[in-house]
């Protein structure tokens, strides 16, 4: 492999190819949905992004547990990268959802309530809370200079922020569903939509994993570069090198 093509780029290439096929199906091949018409096609991006935001959030949780036990740079970089990617995904979900909600004809059919950018319903609220919690973790991190403290506190804050993820997942089961339907599964989604939805879900997952790997590598490379620059007398205390 040459220096411009590293192994993880395969994830991106395959992911983009799958996304291209899925979006082509979603936009040009499949019929529109009976009630929502054309705006429904955002479903094929919105639902895969939402699934992956919860999945990558779970990866962040796992990495945080690893960081709590191992306290190493590698685990810390994995936590940082997966928290960042989760935040990107959940913000994308909120934006896509707003576009869908605004373009569609939502609301109670008995009243004349129509399109809306935002609605205070359980899943939207829980997702917004999730976005703020993960953003809070990154913000906390940026304020801590000592390496070991940053590793542990980021991990602790990630574990606590993660409590919201199952709530986002399950709130359509527990409470009034608001604008969301029950979980999208083969039994709740029309047959012709299955494959584009699945392919897009894996496409977003591959792209998200590519982002995590790239981000973690960047952090490690930056740490290594900083360690090289540190004068030899100070490098005897490796614990503070990351925050210097």
């Amino acid at each position, binding site marked *: 492999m040459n220096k411009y093509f590293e192994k993880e780029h395969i994830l991106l290439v395959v992911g983009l190819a799958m996304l291209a096929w899925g979006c082509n199906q979603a936009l040009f091949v499949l019929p529109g949905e009976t009630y929502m018409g054309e705006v429904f096609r955002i479903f094929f991006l919105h639902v895969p992004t939402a699934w992956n935001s919860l999945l990558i959030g779970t990866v962040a949780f796992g990495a945080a547990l690893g960081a*709590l036990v191992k306290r190493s740079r590698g685990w810390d970089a994995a936590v940082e990268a997966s928290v960042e990617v989760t935040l990107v995904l959940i913000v994308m979900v909120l934006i896509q959802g707003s576009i869908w909600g605004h373009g569609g004809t939502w609301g109670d059919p008995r009243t004349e309530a129509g399109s809306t950018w935002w609605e205070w319903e359980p899943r939207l609220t829980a997702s917004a*809370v999730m976005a703020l919690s993960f953003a809070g973790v990154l913000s906390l991190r940026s*304020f801590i200079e000592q390496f070991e403290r940053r590793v542990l506190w980021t991990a602790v804050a990630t*574990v606590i922020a993660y409590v919201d993820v199952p709530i986002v997942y399950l709130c359509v089961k527990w409470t009034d569903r608001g604008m969301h339907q029950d979980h999208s599964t083969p039994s709740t989604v029309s047959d012709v939509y299955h494959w584009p939805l699945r392919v897009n879900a894996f496409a977003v997952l591959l792209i998200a994993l590519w982002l995590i790997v790239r981000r973690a590598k960047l952090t490690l490379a930056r740490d290594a570069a900083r360690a090289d620059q540190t004068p030899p007398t100070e490098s005897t205390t490796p614990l503070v090198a990351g925050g210097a």
Partner: protein
Amino acid sequence: MSVVRQSLAVLRKDLLVDLRSLRRVVAVSLFGAMTLLLFSFAAGTDSVVLKEQAAGYLWLALFLSSTLALSESFRVELEDDALEGLCLLPVDPRALYYGKAVANLLFLLALSCILVPLSFGLYGPSLRLPLVNLIALLVFGLAGLAGPGTLYSAMTSRARGRDVMLPLLLFPLVVPVLVAGVKGTALVFGGDPMGQFGSWLQLLIVFDLVYWSLCGLLFGKVLDS
């Protein structure tokens, strides 16, 4: 010494610190009272509106003052490296956490003893459910603030930018407490014909169970560094 006795010792220490210098109590209560006043200025003089929104204003005032109270609770431990002394004691970190968290809960309850009567005076809501319902709501709601708040203040008090970090981390987390507290209190003030009060209280109890156990487990890691 068992964890419970160790926690009680930490609790006793914190209460003594607070009682001997009433600084924190006075300052935070004044801030809370000020917030309640500001809400009524901002909302205008319409007494019907004020009465309707009383539950929300009360809980917002409790939320805003709680961040001051919580961050102060660990700031005192930083003076003269008191925290280091605590960490050196041969006690379970969970005892430190639960002692501190209960002390913070009692502090917030004392604060609510001032803010609740004041909000009755300022906004004039009436009690449609027995007072014990409001007390239960305050105990479990404020426990929801004190539990994660104690853990976060242990972190943020030692980080740069601590004044902004605590609310930034705590407020998204405790949105369920705010929602359940405000809805429950609104039912206490406005009457509960549909019998919904119990489910809001249950939500608070579940929230407390989850976070008090999770934060107790994680607290040792925070002190480690």
